């Protein structure tokens, strides 16, 4: 193995966080707005009402502005695995490359082809084909989310694979297992339906602004109905899939669950902290209270995560130091086994090189005993497996609390739309005005929970982050970090000013 430059690893991580988070500013809107536009156009085609055509075109313009920067920020992610994480790419390319390629074949072309029809085909193709194209853009966008999330889910829960000691790589054994893992299902559904909330709130924010200003009132009210129904349904689904995610986390990434719940000591009948302020100085094992302040609902965590209030939920300390009673092995022991696996793997490769097959066989047998702990062998101390608890905990709680707020927003907007007096409800409209920005925070927070909460692993339990990085100078990664940071920020500024101008301009043909 080549020496690892940890400064480079930090910058590569920062760069991935930067590019992924920038990309994620635009993706949820694409995923949800594509459907909202499709709903609107469907109403236009079914009713023949020209007002719905104008509404569709207005939101479509905003969709296009957002879509372009989504593509710009997305391409780098496809290649960043290679540029910054080449050891990872080589070791898992067999498994990880496949969904990326499939994403291109089945999803990106749908988007790219039908996007042109959706925007420029109004007078070139039939009404029906145009509507079909709009739906295909929605389907294509969401399919692309599926495949990239298959890739991401595999890193969180590596199934359907085997480690090949000869090539020192992870190889695909079962494509279906990778595709249908519980993490994929939970992640795909939770990510897409929560993105529908973001897009619905975008519509509500823009419509609220119009209603507060008394402009384009009819268009705004019509749009609100679509957005609040879609948003309400999506909020319900987000709650269900969120619970499913917690169940899956309890099974596959208990450390992440313990971390975002701030649970240090495992227990049966574990409660959920609804609101809490963490003790900043808390270290695992120091017996201090993890919270300075907390409001706890007893039993709920066991109930939600294991569907049984008596179920034991391991805490950070149980997972770190082990818990014999619950049959949990400590990280120290896992590290020893992992180190043994690394030594035996090196011995095996050396023996194969020297042509001593008996010796190779011996090393291999020993390696296989410990290979499930391979990743732990690269850790320097047991505490490495604890993710940043505060970041994960607060991100999770911000996300959940905001989701509750969104539910109220959708209910209020739907209720007053039904009563047809929404434009008089200034407080509700003001809440609507800020809701999209809060939705962006909630959506980003969700990814922070998912990604920061699984540190230090690039592949859960199999490979820590630093093992997957490229052999490149920290300076190069630092330079590209700032290159992307500056470029994306400038493009974002352009996107925002264009978006604001278009919104001020409003729909045509009213």
């Amino acid at each position, binding site marked *: 193995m080549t020496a690892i430059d940890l400064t480079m690893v930090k910058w590569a991580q920062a760069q991935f966080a930067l590019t992924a988070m920038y990309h994620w500013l635009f993706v949820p809107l694409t995923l949800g707005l594509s459907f909202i536009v499709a709903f609107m156009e469907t109403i236009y085609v079914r009713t023949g009402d020209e007002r719905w055509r104008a509404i569709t075109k207005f939101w479509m313009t905003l969709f296009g502005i957002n879509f372009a920067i989504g593509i710009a920020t997305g391409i780098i992610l496809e*290649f960043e695995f290679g540029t910054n994480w*080449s050891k990872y790419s080589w070791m898992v390319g067999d498994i990880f490359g496949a969904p990326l*390629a499939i994403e291109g074949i089945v999803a990106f072309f749908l988007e790219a082809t*039908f996007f042109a029809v959706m925007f420029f085909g109004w007078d070139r193709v039939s009404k029906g084909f145009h509507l079909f194209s709009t739906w295909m853009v929605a389907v294509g966008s969401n399919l692309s989310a599926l495949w990239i999330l298959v890739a991401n889910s595999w890193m969180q829960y590596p199934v359907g694979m085997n480690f090949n000691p000869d090539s*020192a790589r992870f190889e695909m054994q079962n494509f279906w297992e990778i595709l249908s893992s519980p993490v994929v299902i939970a992640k795909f559904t939770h990510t897409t339906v929560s993105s529908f909330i973001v897009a619905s709130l975008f519509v509500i924010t823009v419509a609220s602004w119009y209603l507060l200003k008394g402009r384009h009132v009819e268009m705004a009210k019509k749009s609100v109905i679509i957005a609040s129904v879609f948003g309400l349904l999506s909020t319900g689904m987000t709650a269900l899939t969120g619970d499913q995610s917690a169940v899956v986390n309890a099974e596959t990434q208990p450390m992440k669950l313990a971390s975002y719940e701030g649970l240090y000591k495992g227990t049966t009948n574990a409660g959920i902290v609804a609101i809490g302020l963490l003790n900043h100085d808390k270290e695992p094992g120091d017996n201090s209270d993890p919270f300075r302040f907390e409001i706890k609902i007893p039993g709920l965590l066991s109930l939600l995560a294991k569907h049984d209030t008596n179920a034991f939920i391991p805490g950070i300390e149980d997972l770190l130091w082990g818990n014999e009673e619950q049959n949990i092995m400590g990280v120290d022991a896992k590290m020893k086994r992992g180190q043994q696996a690394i030594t035996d793997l090196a011995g095996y490769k050396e023996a194969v090189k020297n042509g001593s097959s008996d010796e190779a066989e011996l090393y291999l047998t020993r390696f296989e005993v410990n290979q499930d702990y391979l990743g732990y062998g690269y850790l320097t101390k047991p505490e490495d497996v604890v993710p940043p608890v505060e970041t994960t905990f607060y991100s999770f709680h911000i996300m959940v609390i905001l989701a509750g707020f969104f539910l109220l927003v959708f209910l209020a907007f739907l209720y007053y739309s039904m009563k047809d007096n929404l434009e008089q409800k200034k407080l509700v409209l003001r809440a609507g005005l800020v809701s999209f920005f809060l939705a962006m925070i909630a959506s980003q927070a969700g990814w922070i929970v998912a990604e920061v909460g699984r540190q230090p692993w690039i592949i859960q339990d199999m490979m820590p982050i630093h093992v997957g990085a490229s052999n*490149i100078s920290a300076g*190069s990664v630092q330079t590209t970090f700032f290159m992307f940071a500056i470029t994306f920020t400038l493009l974002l500024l352009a996107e925002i000013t*264009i978006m604001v101008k278009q919104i001020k301009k409003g729909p045509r043909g009213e």
Partner: protein
Amino acid sequence: MIGSLDLTVLQQIWWLLVSVVGALFLFLTFVQGGQSLLWQVAKNDTEKALVINSLGRKWELTFTTLVLFGGALFAAFPKFYATSFGGAYWVWILILFTFIVQAVSYEYRKKPGNFFGAKTYEVFLLINGSVGILLIGAAVGTFFTGSNFILNDYNQVTWTSPLRGLEAAFSVFNLSLGLFLVFNARVLGAMYLINNIDFIGMPEFERRMRRACFINLLCALPFLLYVLVSLLIMKGYGVDENGVISLVAYKYLQNLLAMPYTLGLLLAGLVLVVWGVVLTGLKTGTRGIWFGGLGTVFVGLAVFFLAGYGNTAFYPSKVDLQSSLTIYNASSTHYTLTAMTYVAMVIPFVLAYIAYVWKLMDSKKLDINDISDEKAY
């Protein structure tokens, strides 16, 4: 069915698929060619708008094809993906950068409040159409001239040039291939625009476009000639039955002779491109793009076949021959290639709907009305 195929057959199938995607990308660089022609052929805002809107209906296809090229290489030849992207860092980063700025340019160029002004976005398009394609050409050139890397026992790459891939642009061969692709893209761009835009009432605009097609072919020719002659006489990186790599004199000439279909593709491709230029640049035809496009696909296929087939290392290392990548030592496993081959069966369907939509959308040429539409770029 596919699972019973030999690993070598699957590796060859996947090199074929990667070559097809790569060759289609080269055809679709008519978008980049059109971008770099913008200032040369369009002299006023209307003409510019026509060019931008015409290309704007296709740019995502080119972009997506490039992304798929990367994705397919990752899935099928992960050692290449890891070695090249992680090694030739800067050349890839700069290529990607030109595509990042391209992606917003069509949508934002004419939108009010676009922060930088239309000209900046036009410069972005120019950079993508020139530097982007030049560097892609230089990167593909290293398939023949080799790169500076060493792989260790764990196949982890160490790049021995401090320029991290940019050194590719300092080889005359790579540079020539890059410049050929830039000019070829411009030839294709002019052909596409002639095919796509309604020039009624704008004879001068049409004349400039047709002239550009012809002139750019003339510009492309010396670089093409240099690349072709070099290919015929240069040493290549051959691999023997034990997987040992060595420098072989006249390797690519040998490949051409041993794989006559490659020679056929190359020659037919060149003739088709020239015929496309004759139709567009010297006559008054509008269908040159189909000949030029098909010709480019053929030439592209020939280039990729020469690099990957015939016991040749497609990503050779100059500094450590045995680190060189072949389609056999760089590929995914039998299982992955099998699964991916099943997935690839949808490719004809994808091509079919792209072709259908293309025909549907372009049956009526782009005219002044289209660029005054509220949705226009």
